[in-house]
């Protein structure tokens, strides 16, 4: 298989500067793939899929009684980012996370940013993501956001934007690590030839970041990863991360609160827990504080947190900073807390809570992307240029009924990356989710989960909507 007939079709392409002209640092990759026969490349693809299947990195096909399991689609051709590009991204992401952490602390503390009228107070106080239960909370080391996965996209000119921030236990990092493992087997000689930066220390950095939060440093902290259990779609990742860090993978029923300390039920008796990397939503965390019907959480855990007897990563309440309506204010947030201009820009966003903007959105539905503020996974979205008349009418009704719940953005012409489609290589739209950890300091893993919309011309990369993933190579040059 080769790139002879590959076309960029006027989009920004991650590997090609123009038709038949690879970007300079990527030429080794292009040459290698050009040198592979179709059979060989297909065999590599099969081997990769089999490896994922055997490791059980699968999901059950919904509604299939035979229990058929499938792997998430994975494309062998990596997406490559140069060293210079990465340097800027890294700085920008660190800046963003630092500001957002200060913002969350302020919102549940003095609310200075609201008093100074940088953000309309009602936008925050009426948000579903603003948790009154967190007012006055002082999490260890004043860290709220420990693990972030912000979604980045590029436009037609190749400029990076932050599309959204995910501050509520973002998932996907295990795919990043597994994808890398597979590509190391597929293209072993390219890693040295191209100077690809390693990602393998992610779990060590995560472990250190979690340990840093421990209330008591006189002994090795007892860390736990709290999972909703095997039926959760990200269960594989929970088990994987716990295993890689060598920490306990617990379900809510394994934990109990005794004298305001969180305890594990072990074969020996109760054992005190210091830090919980929780992968369950705020709502389900503590039936005493949040949803009463939650069986996934631990009763009384919020009081332990309040007393400083346990640390939670991420802290509850961080959702207020990734509410899509608040997103529009992130540049102001960065300016306010750090007195800096944002290094990575936001995508132009029209929050419909503002009447003028709402009117603009309603008049331009056919060219905009409309999103519900509190949904993810590609749900609750209207992509104007690809929509039908009745879909637009439907969204117009929804926006008029609850303007606060909708934002709109111009339809970006996302960059594309070469992808194996059947027997050919074609361009497909991609985004990228880098992972940022905040322990003692902030660090970004040099790589990311590149998601690719496998359907021709589709702009939706979510796995629930026919998306796949790619390994992401950050070069050291």
């Amino acid at each position, binding site marked *: 298989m080769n790139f002879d007939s590959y076309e960029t079709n006027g989009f920004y392409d991650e590997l090609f500067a123009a038709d038949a002209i690879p970007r300079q640092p990527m030429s080794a990759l292009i040459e290698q793939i050009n040198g592979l026969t179709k059979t060989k490349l297909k065999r590599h693809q099969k081997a990769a899929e089999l490896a994922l299947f055997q490791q059980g990195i699968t999901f059950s096909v919904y509604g299939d009684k035979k229990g058929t399991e499938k792997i998430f689609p994975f494309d062998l051709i990596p997406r490559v980012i140069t060293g210079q590009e990465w340097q800027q991204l890294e700085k920008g992401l660190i800046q963003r996370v630092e500001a957002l952490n200060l913002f969350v602390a302020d919102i549940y503390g003095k609310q200075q940013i609201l008093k100074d009228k940088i953000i309309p107070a009602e936008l925050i106080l009426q948000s579903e993501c603003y948790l009154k239960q967190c007012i006055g909370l002082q999490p260890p080391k004043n860290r709220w956001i420990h693990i972030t996965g912000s979604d980045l996209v590029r436009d037609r000119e190749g400029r990076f934007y932050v599309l959204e921030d995910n501050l509520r236990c973002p998932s996907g990092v295990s795919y990043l690590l597994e994808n890398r493992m597979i590509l190391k087997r597929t293209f072993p000689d390219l890693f040295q030839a191209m100077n690809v930066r390693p990602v393998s220390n992610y779990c060590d950095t995560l472990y250190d970041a979690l340990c840093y939060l421990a209330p008591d440093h006189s002994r090795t902290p007892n860390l736990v990863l709290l999972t909703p259990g095997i039926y959760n779609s990200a269960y594989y990742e929970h088990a994987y991360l716990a295993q890689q860090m060598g920490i306990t*993978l617990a379900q809510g029923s394994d934990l109990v609160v005794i004298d305001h300390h969180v305890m594990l039920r072990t074969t020996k008796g109760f054992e005190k827990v210091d830090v919980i990397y929780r992968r369950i939503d705020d709502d389900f965390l503590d039936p005493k504080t949040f949803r009463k019907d939650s069986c996934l959480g631990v009763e009384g855990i919020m009081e332990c947190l309040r007393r400083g007897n346990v640390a939670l990563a991420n802290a509850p309440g961080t959702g207020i900073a990734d509410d899509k309506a608040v997103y529009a204010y992130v540049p102001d947030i960065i300016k306010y807390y750090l007195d800096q201009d944002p290094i990575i820009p936001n995508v132009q966003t029209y929050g419909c809570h503002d009447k003028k903007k709402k009117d603009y959105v309603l008049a331009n539905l056919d060219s905009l992307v409309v999103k519900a503020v509190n949904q993810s996974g590609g749900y609750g979205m209207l992509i104007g240029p690809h929509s039908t008349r009745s879909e637009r009418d439907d969204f117009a009704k929804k926006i008029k009924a609850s303007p606060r719940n909708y934002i709109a953005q111009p339809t970006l012409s996302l960059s594309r990356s070469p992808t194996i489609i059947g027997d050919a290589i074609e361009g497909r739209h991609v985004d990228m989710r880098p992972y940022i950890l905040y322990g003692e300091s902030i660090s970004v893993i040099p790589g990311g989960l590149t998601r690719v919309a496998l359907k021709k011309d589709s702009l939706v990369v979510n796995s629930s909507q026919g998306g796949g993933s790619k390994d992401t190579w950050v070069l050291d040059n």
Partner: protein
Amino acid sequence: MLSRVANSIYWMSRYLERANNVSRFVEVNLHLILDMNLSRKQMQWEPLVITSGDNEDFLKRYHYADEKNVVRFLTFDEKNPNSITSCILLARENARTVRESIPSELWETINELYHLVKKNSRKRKLNDLQSFYGAMNQYGNLMTGVYQDTFSHSEAWHFSQVGMMLERADKTARMLDVKYFLLLPSAESTNTPYDTVEWSAVLKSASAFEMYRKQYHSINCHNVANFLLFDPHFPRAIKYCINTAARSLQSIIDLLNIEVRAKDEMLKLQEMLSKTNIEQILNNGLHEFIDIFQLNINVLDRAIYESFFIK
């Protein structure tokens, strides 16, 4: 370690062992049938169902114990909780909930085995299944190696050993019980070639044929029963299983430094085997002995649950 995790590892290991035993029983029987005359063939399948302990469920749904029905019931019937399919499914579900506590190699082997079973469950012809039972056997041996060499021999591993060995002792006992009951009264076939063939099959069902031969050379029911009950060295003999389980239980108790009732129950089981011999047992009734033995395994299982798994 977490009580829930210990419980899952214990059951994961029991289910794996159970699947393996069922597979071996069926495979041996398929071979045995070929050496039988017609009238014996008819009665050769029902004991397998009786050994599994699910006779009632079987008769309700299948009515008649012929080859086709029994093989299906024991191998791929998902409604039978002790079929190979069900056991592997349960082993995998348990393994999934403790994925972070067991070596990846073990999880991946169980996962592969699961997909092997799924793939074969579409086959309908018995002759196509021969290779499947062979593969089951190989996976069983592979699993033992993975357990042995990729898993730290500490608390979690010891729970797996207790589970595996108790299950194995139970299955060897059941098999001996049923076969003895079935073969003994057939006076007309005593000392005929059939007799030897059938007792050989009993040994093969426990992978014990060659090791038995080295010790006793000729095959008779007294020695076969003695070997499967009391041999201290053969890994599927009941005495070996119970002693191994007892050592692992003791290791757990030492590691945790606690007093538990499970220890007393284990001692009872060991004494049952040490305070008697094959002559006494055959005189008083093998079936009666095995009945009490199995009852004591169940009591021990309950005691382990209460000692470690609910906190």
